[in-house]
C-alpha cells in the first residue's frame, strides 16, 4: 500500500493512497467541520462545509471527496474558509424553518452546534419560510421537512447499511425533499424495516422518535461504527 506524505495546517502527516483529506485530517487531530459525512457511509459532498484550500489549486476542494496526494499542502481553517462556512450555515438556516427553541433536538443538534462554533449569531439572508409538512404516519418515527438540510445521510444509511433504500431524494435544488418509497406516507412504506438507522444518523431534528418533547431527543451514532467495523473488519467492538 503506497503512503502519501502531505502537510495539513502546517503539520506533516501521512495517509494511505486513496484516503480522503478529511479522513487523514481527522486521524491526525485536525477537525474539519461537516454535516453530510458520516464515517462508514459513502461520501457525496452535499454540505460543502469541509471545503479546504490546497496550495497550487485555485478552486476550493471538498475534503471528504478529495484523495490525498504526495506533497500536498492543505489549509483547513483560513479566514476565507471560515467565512464560506458561516455563509453555508446561514444559507441552510434561511432555507427551511429551523426554530431551535421549540425543536426536539435543541441542545444536541449538529447544525446548531456548528453554527455556535463558527459564530453564526445572525443570518444575513432573508428567511424563506417554506410551507413544509411533518410526516408522523410511522408508528415509531417522525419526519419533519422543516428541519431537513438535505445532507442525505438517511438515504445512504438506509441503502448502504440497512439495504432497504426506503428513503431517496425527490425534486431539485433547495426544493428537494427526502421521500419514502415513491413519495407516500412513511407509515405506509413497504420497504421500511423500522430499524431507525436514518433517525440516528440525522444531524438535526428532521428525523425523530415519536413521543419526544422539546429538547428531549438525543441520537446515538455508535451503532453505525459497530455495524461497519463488524462488516468490514469482522471485528466486534462492543
Amino acid at each position, binding site marked *: 500500500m503506497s503512503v502519501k506524505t502531505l502537510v495539513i495546517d502546517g503539520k506533516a502527516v501521512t495517509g494511505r493512497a486513496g484516503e480522503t483529506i478529511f479522513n487523514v485530517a481527522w486521524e491526525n487531530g485536525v477537525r474539519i467541520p461537516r454535516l453530510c459525512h458520516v464515517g462508514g457511509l459513502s461520501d457525496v459532498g452535499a454540505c460543502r462545509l469541509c471545503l479546504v484550500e490546497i496550495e497550487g489549486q485555485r478552486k476550493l476542494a471538498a475534503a471528504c471527496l478529495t484523495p490525498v496526494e504526495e506533497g500536498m499542502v492543505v489549509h483547513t481553517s483560513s479566514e476565507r474558509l471560515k467565512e464560506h462556512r458561516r455563509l453555508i450555515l446561514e444559507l441552510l438556516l434561511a432555507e427551511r424553518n429551523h426554530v431551535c427553541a*421549540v425543536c426536539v433536538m435543541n441542545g444536541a443538534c449538529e447544525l446548531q452546534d456548528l453554527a455556535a462554533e463558527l459564530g453564526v449569531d445572525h443570518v444575513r439572508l432573508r428567511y424563506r419560510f417554506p410551507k413544509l409538512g*411533518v410526516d*408522523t404516519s410511522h408508528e415509531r418515527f417522525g419526519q419533519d421537512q422543516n428541519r431537513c438540510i438535505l445532507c442525505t445521510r438517511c438515504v445512504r444509511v438506509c441503502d448502504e447499511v440497512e439495504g432497504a433504500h426506503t428513503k431517496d431524494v425527490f425534486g431539485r435544488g433547495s426544493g428537494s425533499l427526502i421521500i419514502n418509497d415513491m413519495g407516500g406516507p412513511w407509515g405506509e412504506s413497504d420497504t421500511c424495516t423500522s430499524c431507525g438507522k436514518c433517525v440516528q444518523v440525522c444531524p438535526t431534528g428532521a428525523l425523530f422518535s415519536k*413521543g419526544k*418533547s*422539546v429538547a428531549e431527543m438525543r441520537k446515538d451514532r455508535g451503532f453505525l461504527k459497530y455495524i461497519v467495523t463488524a462488516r468490514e473488519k469482522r471485528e466486534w467492538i462492543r
Partner: protein
Amino acid sequence: MSRRILINPVTRIEGHAKISIYVDETGEISGAQFHVVELRGFEKFAQGRPFHEMPGLMARTCGICPVSHVLAGSKAGDALLGIAPPEAAQKQRRLMNYAQHLQSHALSFFHLSSPDFLLGFDSDPARRNIFGLAASDPDFARRGIRLRQFGQTVIEMLGGRRIHPPFSAPGGMTRVLEQADVDEIRAWIPEAYESVRLALARFKKVVDEYPDEIEHIGNFPSLFMGLVNRYGELELYDGAIRFVDGEGNVVADGLDPARYQTYIGEAAEEWSYMKFPYYKPLGYPGGMYRVGPLARLNVCNSTGTPLADRELREFRQRGKGAVCAAFYYHWARLIEMLHAVERIEELAADPAILSKQVRARAGQNRNLGVGVCEAPRGTLFHHYEVDDNGLVRKVNLLIATGQNNLAMNQAVEQTARRFLRPDQVTEGALNRVEAAIRCFDPCLSCATHAAGRWPLVVEFRRPSGELLSRVVRGG
C-alpha cells in the same frame, strides 16, 4: 365636542397595551377601552406540529409564566394519550406550579404594583418603581427580589433553567428530583415565610390609607371563576370549575374544565386583539367574570393550609359574600404566596416526590385534549385537536388575562370616571387608571416587561382626530 384621552403605552405591566378614554361634549367621561395592541398567533402556528412538542412550544407564549403553559400543554397531552402521570410526576408538577405562583406574584406585588401604594399614587413617577422602593426600604425590596428568586430557583431545579423550562411532557416529567434539590428548597422556606409575613403586615398597614382607591378602582359585583378541589379548597393544578357571584353565592359548581366550551363563550371586538370570554348562561357582555387570585379566594371554601386560611378569614371581612374591589387583588396575591410557601414546604417533605418513576408511556388514544390549570393570573385552558397521526389540527387557548378583559375595561372606566378630570389631567390620576389595570397583573404578550421606562403619552383629540393637546411622561 367629544374627545379621546389616550394612555399609550400602559406602564409597569407585562406586555403592551393602551387605554382610550372618551370624553363627550359636556366634558363627562363617556367610556373607556383597554386595547391590547399585540398579535401573537400561537393558535395558528402550532397547527401541523406533533402534539408532543406542544408543552415546549406553548411555553414560549410567556416569559413570566412559561410553567403554566407547559403544565396546561402537558395536561392536554395526558388527555390525548388517555393516561394519568405517575404520582411523583403530579407532585413535581404541583411543586413547579406553586413555585411559579410564588415568583410571579412576587414580581407583580413587589416590582410592579407596590410602588403605587407604598410610595404613593401621586409620588414622583421617576422614583415610583422598584428602584425607588429599594432606595426607601432596601430590606423590603431585597426580600421581594429574593422571594422571586426562591420561586425561580425551584423552577430551575426541575426545569434546568428559569425561563421556558422544558420539564414536563405528555405523560409526566422529563427529569427527576434529587434529595439535594429538596434539601435546598427546604433551606429557603424560613426566609420565604418571613418575607411573605412582612409583606402582608406592610400591606395591611397601608391598605386603609386608600379608601377612595379601594372604593373606585375596579370595585363592582361580577362573577368569579376558579378551580377548587373535591373539598372545595383552593386548587391550582387540577380540580373542577366553580363560579360564584358578587355576593359569594355559588352559581355553578363541579363543572368539568374539559367541557369549558359548554359554559364559556368567546366574543371578539375590533378594537382589541384580546378575546372577550364570558359566562354563557348570562350572555355577552352580561356574563363578565373575573379570574386570578381575587377570584380564587372568592370561589374556594378555604385554602386548605393553616396560615393562609387564617389570612383568608381576615381578608373575607372586606366584602359581603365576595370581595369585589380590584385593589384587593394585591392582598389576595399575598395570601396565595403564603399558601404557596406552605404547599412547597409540604411537597418538599414528601418522600414520594423523589420517586424515579415520573413518566407514563402510551400511544395516542384520543383526538381531543383539554388541559386546565390555574396560572398566577387565573385559569388557563389549552385545547388541542389532533389528527390520527398526532399532528395538531386546531388549538384554542383561553388565557387568564383574556378572561379578565371585560372586567379590566369596566375597571378602567370606573377609575377614570372617579379620578380623571378631562380639563385637568394630572399624572397621579393617570397613574390610578394604570393601577386599575395593574391590579389584574395582566400578562399581555407575557413576554416583555415595561418597568416604568416606557413613555406615557396622553392625547386629547377631537372626534375628527385633530390633536388638541398632548402630555408626555418618562421615556
